[in-house]
């Protein structure tokens, strides 16, 4: 029974494909051959669209007719720093309308940096009978009325997560719209809501959902209501407290401590707004079981932070304000040997003088003491090449390194030299580095290092750095795996951009603002590359009212199969391939 070339039957391949779920592998499968492409697209259940304008709803639906889970991302990352004007785009409605018609069995929708209306939420609530998961991350445009529709209609809802979204909080009543018969909630994150929710309804909801594992409250939930909530859900694994302050009363404290102690599965804590330090010891009973601690709202000083953190020997993830200071980070390094991720946020980013004793030394200590450290986000006011070198050699296993020296163009504070060599050491030694954010005084040399060594780099953020186009050229020509590049206030211009136009088709997106890219070059790029959308943003008026050589305010380039978008606001223009200025 010899066959010259065989092929596995379709059912076999479909069965095998069902074990292969990562997006990368699924994309790979669909590129192997046409018949695999066909089999794969029918059995794809989960899709991730990193840029909602890279594809359109009809194209997605046509290719993947049987989806159960869709993730969409809208605005570029720099929207988080207010660089993307209001009304730019990222509207979820067309997607939700289209999916309502095409995917009656859709179970999960995850949106990030998108504009979501109440109408969209109502459509979701009414269209998907088996709807289970709604995650709205850094979204905006909806009110608590939309949430009420979800609560009232989604019988099978398991997860409602509004992380960091801007919600117009009209009333806390919406929580009562979950029917009494509804018990399937597993995860609830309302931490971004401004107003009080109906606390009785919350308590009843929490206590009647036996599978509730994640509960992140908003600031308005007072501390003295927390014990009751915890007692209603002793199986909680992740808790975000509300305001962590109250009149200091021993009964409140002991009640709280007892309630915490009763949560034997609690592994993650967050919240901690307005912390009263004397209440922190209430969490001591569970510190030894914590793997993740988010204290980025906790304005407490180093000694209290030290007392807390030193008890968390299993800690893998810590987000904290710079109040922790170098001393606190040294204790962290000594106590938390399992630490994988550290983020230190600035307590006073706009102050001119340092308000805390946090320097590069804190990060060096952690890099020395925590062998599993992979992911770092660190705000500080001074850095040296020597420190970066030490960190790089200590921790070659770093995969994410985001350093934010608060004052732009700060040199090595010891030598007054640029920090090129320090960051060069980072990319050279950390061979698996996937994400890098630069800061401080940097010349084109650092980009040479990045292009040479950053072979696994997928995302690079640059601000106030470099001398010339050569810097940009090094990155675009050298970083083989680059997917997202975001640049602001750098002297990068036309030459590097046009010379590396083809590279842009291999990336998700490029953002350049306050750089030296001319309007003329944008037009050329748009003409040359029909599969890219080259969008110019200018709030001061149409770019063709100025000379071709004048630099554009903001440039956003992304690959797409959907052609130019049709929902642009007045300050965004797409450079079309017929070089006419296209407005929507």
């Amino acid at each position, binding site marked *: *029974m*010899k*066959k010259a*070339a*065989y*092929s*596995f039957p379709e059912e*076999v391949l479909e*069965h*095998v494909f069902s*074990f*292969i779920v990562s997006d990368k*592998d699924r*994309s*790979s*499968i669909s*590129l*192997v*051959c*046409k*018949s695999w492409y066909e089999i794969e697209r029918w059995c794809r259940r989960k899709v991730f669209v990193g840029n909602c304008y890279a594809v359109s709803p009809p194209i997605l639906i046509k290719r993947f007719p049987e989806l159960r889970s869709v993730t969409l991302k809208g605005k570029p990352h720099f929207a988080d720093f207010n660089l993307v004007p209001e009304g730019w785009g990222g509207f979820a409605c067309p997607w939700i309308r289209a999916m309502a018609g095409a995917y009656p069995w859709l179970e999960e929708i995850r949106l990030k940096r998108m504009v979501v209306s109440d109408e969209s939420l109502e459509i979701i609530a009414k269209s998907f009978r088996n709807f289970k998961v709604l995650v709205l991350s850094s979204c905006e445009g909806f009110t608590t009325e939309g949430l009420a529709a979800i609560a009232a209609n989604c019988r099978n809802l398991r997860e409602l997560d509004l992380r960091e979204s801007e919600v117009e909080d009209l009333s806390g009543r919406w929580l009562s719209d979950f029917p009494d018969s509804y018990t399937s909630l597993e995860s609830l994150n309302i931490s971004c809501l401004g107003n009080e929710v109906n606390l009785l309804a919350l308590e009843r909801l929490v206590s009647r959902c036996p599978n509730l594992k994640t509960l992140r409250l908003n600031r308005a939930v007072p501390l003295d209501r927390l014990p009751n909530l915890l007692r209603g859900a002793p199986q909680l694994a992740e808790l975000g407290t509300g305001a962590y302050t109250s009149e200091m009363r021993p009964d409140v404290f002991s009640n709280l401590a007892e309630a915490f102690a009763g949560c034997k599965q609690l592994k993650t804590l967050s919240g901690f707004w307005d912390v009263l330090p004397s209440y922190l010891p209430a969490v001591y009973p569970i510190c030894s079981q914590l793997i993740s601690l988010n204290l980025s709202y906790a304005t407490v000083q180093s000694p209290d932070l030290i007392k807390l953190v030193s008890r968390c020997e299993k800690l893998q993830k810590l987000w904290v304000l710079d109040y922790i200071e170098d001393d606190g980070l040294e204790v962290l390094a000594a106590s938390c040997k399992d630490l994988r991720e550290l983020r230190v946020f600035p307590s006073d980013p706009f102050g001119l003088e340092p308000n805390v004793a946090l320097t590069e030394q804190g990060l060096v200590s952690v890099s020395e003491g925590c062998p599993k450290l992979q992911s770092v986000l660190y705000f500080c006011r001074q850095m040296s090449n020597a420190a970066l070198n030490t960190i790089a050699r200590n921790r070659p296993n770093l995969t994410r390194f985001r350093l934010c020296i608060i004052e732009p163009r700060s040199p090595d504070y010891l030598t007054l030299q640029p920090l090129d060599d320090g960051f060069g050491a980072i990319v050279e030694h950390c061979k698996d580095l996937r994400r890098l954010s630069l800061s401080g005084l940097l010349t084109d040399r650092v980009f040479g290092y990045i292009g040479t060594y950053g072979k696994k780099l997928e995302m690079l953020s640059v601000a106030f750095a470099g001398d010339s186009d050569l810097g940009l050229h090094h990155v675009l020509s050298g970083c*083989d*795996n680059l997917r997202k590049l975001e640049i602001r206030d750098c002297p990068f211009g036309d030459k590097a951009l046009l010379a590396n136009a*083809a590279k842009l*088709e*291999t990336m998700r997106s490029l953002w350049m603002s306050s750089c030296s890219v001319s309007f003329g070059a944008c037009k050329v790029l748009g003409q040359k590359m029909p*599969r890219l959308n080259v969008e110019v943003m200018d709030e001061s008026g149409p770019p063709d009212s100025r000379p071709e050589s004048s630099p554009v305010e903001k440039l956003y380039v992304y*690959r797409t199969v959907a052609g130019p978008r049709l929902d642009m606001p007045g300050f965004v223009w797409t450079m079309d391939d017929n070089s006419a200025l296209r407005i929507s």
Partner: protein
Amino acid sequence: MELLCIRQWISGLLPTWLSAWCIKPVGGALVRQEPEYILLALMGSPLKKIMLCSSEKEIFSVEEQVMVQHSVIINNMIEDGSYNHEESKIPLDCVDSKTLKKVIDYCTHHTHHHNDNQEDLEAWDAQFLNVDSNGLYDLLMAANYLEIRNLLDLIYGTIKNMIKGKKIDEIRRIFNIKDHGFTPEEEEQNRKEYPHFY
């Protein structure tokens, strides 16, 4: 033990009511069933063999216990009595000799070595599946036909690993895909947009 001794020993052991049952109707006549066969059947003798016949008409003798443990199809045949030990062989017209031998190897090893530690078993499995994709295909078809669950899962896992994390050119080579079916323009565009996949 000598067959005669076994027979006497067993006859001595069997209670009278069971001895009376040593009677089986065959072709209309009552034939006395040999007692030792009954007791051996009661004990689930590992020595009892069954015959499997490949598509190339080659006969393979294999312990019944081994095949019954692994193959749902064969287990059903034995249980519902459609397999007569003295005369029958099970014809497997879709399985060639080479593949059948391998399937028998697999089942035999896993029956006899089921107490081995996990690492050793996995190493043996890996070695066992070190075949080209044609061979893998034949094994998959055979395991599917015979409904051998653990072998099927093993093969599915192996096929998965032939795909997961591999570059596309390599996948095409492994699966012997000579014509990918995309137009030259499509293929070129794909290579342009996803260079690190190839």
